[in-house]
């Protein structure tokens, strides 16, 4: 039973699938002895009754677990720092991290929903910020144009990835690995391998920083949540979302229904590219400076937020609200790790483990289903 405790997230995910498929309680398959198996069954029944609660059913078991994890984590960090972690400063700092990561994670949710993957989002985000920032600082383009340039660069990469994957059938893993390097290279060539600093808040064109924070109002949070709602509508209420999820589940069946699967598959990558372009703006609005040749670590974090939230790496299942909570967990985690005096490297280890655990939980849930 101790196994159960350490794997709360995993169990939660598994149970969510079980519930969705109406399969009743989980049966332990394998080598556990009879006695143990019946105990597991009893535990399953209890979880089952919680899941049948109308409130839990509406919000989603998995998301409630994630919220609890988020609150517990915050409490843990406060306790470990003897209360120094409490207060708005840390929260605002964590939110700054959550904004750009949120847009990345939302974007990659669409791609993962099709059953694909995008490892280029982090470097592409930096590429957007570098090209737009360099144009701004060196060539003197006005701020609104720089914002548009950033989004356009993101879109171009999205179209490039999507076209290769959907129309040429290049595996998304390879496509995005290649475009990750292309993004890094293009950014370095464009900026002659120099870092770029976007204007400070009080400088000319500094208004863009109010996208993140206007006085004491966390405008970034509001914008992120609005975009998340739009994404949720796209995914759950429109033809595009229906086709993206369906083809992620069974592309051939959708194609044989006479649907233009190539177009819809590509659209997921285009949305992702667009959101990556937006993420770049929020990155510089929070941190000002970008350096060429970096950005890979954000891939893992964005994907971690996404799969933790209940989006299946195998495609066909995605949750926007789950992604957002997942992003908050990652952002709080990195803030907490810094507050505890560890380096960023520790966070790399932890997000790496999160990805593996979340994906493994998904695999287990699928295996039980069969």
């Amino acid at each position, binding site marked *: 039973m101790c196994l159960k405790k350490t794997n709360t997230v995993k169990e939660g995910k598994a149970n969510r699938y079980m519930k969705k*498929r109406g399969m009743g309680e989980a049966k332990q398959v394998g080598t556990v002895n009879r006695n143990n198996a019946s105990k597991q069954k009893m535990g399953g029944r209890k979880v089952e009754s919680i899941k049948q609660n109308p409130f839990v059913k509406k919000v989603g078991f998995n998301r409630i677990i994630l919220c609890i994890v988020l609150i517990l984590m915050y409490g843990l960090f406060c306790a470990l720092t003897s209360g120094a972690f409490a207060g708005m400063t840390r929260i605002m700092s964590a939110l700054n991290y959550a904004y750009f990561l949120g847009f990345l994670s939302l974007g990659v949710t669409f791609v993962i929903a099709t059953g694909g993957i995008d490892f280029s989002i982090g470097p592409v985000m930096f590429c957007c910020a570098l090209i737009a920032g360099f144009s701004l600082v060196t060539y003197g383009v006005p701020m609104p144009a720089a914002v548009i340039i950033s989004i356009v660069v993101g879109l171009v990469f999205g179209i490039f990835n999507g076209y290769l994957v959907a129309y040429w059938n290049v595996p998304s893993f390879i496509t995005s690995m290649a475009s990750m390097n292309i993004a890094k290279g293009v950014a370095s060539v464009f900026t002659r391998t120099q870092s770029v600093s976007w204007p400070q808040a009080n400088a000319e064109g500094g208004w863009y920083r109010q996208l993140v924070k206007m006085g004491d109002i966390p405008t970034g949070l509001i914008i992120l949540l609005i975009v998340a709602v739009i994404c949720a509508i796209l995914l759950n209420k429109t*033809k595009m979302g229906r086709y993206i999820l369906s083809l992620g589940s069974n592309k051939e069946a959708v194609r044989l229904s*006479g649907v233009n699967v190539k177009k819809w598959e590509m659209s997921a990558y285009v949305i992702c590219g667009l959101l990556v372009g937006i993420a770049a703006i929020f990155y510089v609005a929070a941190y000002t400076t970008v350096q060429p040749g970096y950005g890979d670590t954000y891939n893992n974090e964005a994907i971690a937020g996404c799969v933790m939230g209940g989006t299946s790496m195998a495609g066909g299942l995605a949750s926007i609200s789950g992604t957002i909570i997942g992003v908050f967990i990652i952002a709080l985690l990195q803030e907490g790790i810094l507050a505890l005096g560890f380096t960023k490297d520790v966070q790399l280890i932890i997000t790496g483990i999160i990805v593996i655990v979340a994906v493994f939980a998904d695999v287990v849930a699928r295996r039980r289903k069969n």
Partner: protein
Amino acid sequence: MGEVILTMKGIDKSFPGVHALDHVDLEERKGEVHALMGENGAGKSTLMKVLTGIYKKDSGTITYEGKEVEFHNTREAQDAGVVIVHQELNMLGHLTVAQNIFIGREFKKGIRIDDKKMNEEARKLFDRMNIDIDPRETMSNLTVGKQQMCEIAKAISHDAKVIIFDEPSAALTEAEIAELFKIIRDLREQGLGIIYISHRMDEIKVITDRVTVMRDGTYVGTLVTEDSTKDDIINMMVGRVIYEDPKTENMTPKDAPVVLKVEHLNAGKMVQDVSFELHKGEILGFSGLMGAGRTETARALFGADPIDSGDIYINGKKVTIKSPQDAVRNGIGYLSEDRKRFGIVVQKTVAENTTMATLDAYANGPFINKKKEKEVAEKYVESLATKTPSVDQLVVNLSGGNQQKVVIAKWLTRNSDILIFDEPTRGIDVGAKNEIYKLMNQLAAEGKAIIMISSEMTEILRMSDRIIVMCEGKKTGELDISEATQENIMNMATREIN
């Protein structure tokens, strides 16, 4: 017959929405060929998958060589001497015969694979079976029959004590079947237990010692083959189910217009110069052996695979079909033989699957009108009598027959006039099968034109108005139902094979 080697007792297995096995018993003796019979979906294959560890049983006991056992995978079963020769061949086409037989347990010389030794050992196996196959031959160069022999050789090489044959004769020619039977008799002489799954009545009488009959996932009874007649067995198999009456004459109206005309269709090796006509209100059966090119013809016609040459006319007008989109636009619907892979999206609901081909009609601009979608799905759940708690149920939880109805609903929603049913009742239990038949007849009566591909002779004879027979990618015959018999269809179906 010798002593009992294997006993399965009270085996129970459920899948979501289907009670696949309901307390089934089976007993196998040494030196016995034991037939396992039943209609499609009776649970024969499921029972064997439970035995060999592919599925885990919910309850019941398996006793093998006097000990209670439970195999967790086919490997464990193999090691114990219980081996299955599958209906679909699990061979790696680019490897040699010997490499296939010894895959996973290659002979080695140091770290190098010892191909010479493997070839010798394979040769010994073939000698023991009295057949002539070169172990060095590449697997894909062999005929289906020869590949089957290799599967058997592989089974024997595992030091098998019980060998299960899952419909081994489905893809074989007469001569190959004779050879197969010779091998099976040899194995019986050597004291092996043979479980033989088939629904060819004639074979059962020739080769088996006892027959166990299953129906709808339940155990019906066991007979000694010698003491029972064909009718005894059929009665046990069919039980209470009353089928649609078999057709004896063409029911298509005399003046029915041609809705689909295919001329000289070529698509790869499996579709060579196929021409035919399909009338309004007609059920056109496509018969032939496995690998005859029937599915390939349907897929080419539907735009799922590329067409090399040939003309397609719909309602007298020439059309170009390059993709399923083109086919659907022209009113063709395709119900695949493999529903799970090509028919339904299992993680989506009944309603979402129903509108999959017609979403534009159930959307305002980019937004889906879920209310309208639900209404149409409910309409078809009612008219097709689909058994589902609600249209919001995920299709993965429905039984095979009901999943098939959801696919039918998809094409009816689209208002397709030409429906291609590829093995419409494969993996569907008996009662539901009859409902699908009824539905197809009803659709034909309403003026839909239906192409039905089927490997079951009884299905072809029961449903078709006209029959087209294919063999090796060519059309080898066309018959009106009034002149069709099992014999003349079989003749045409093997015409190209020597």
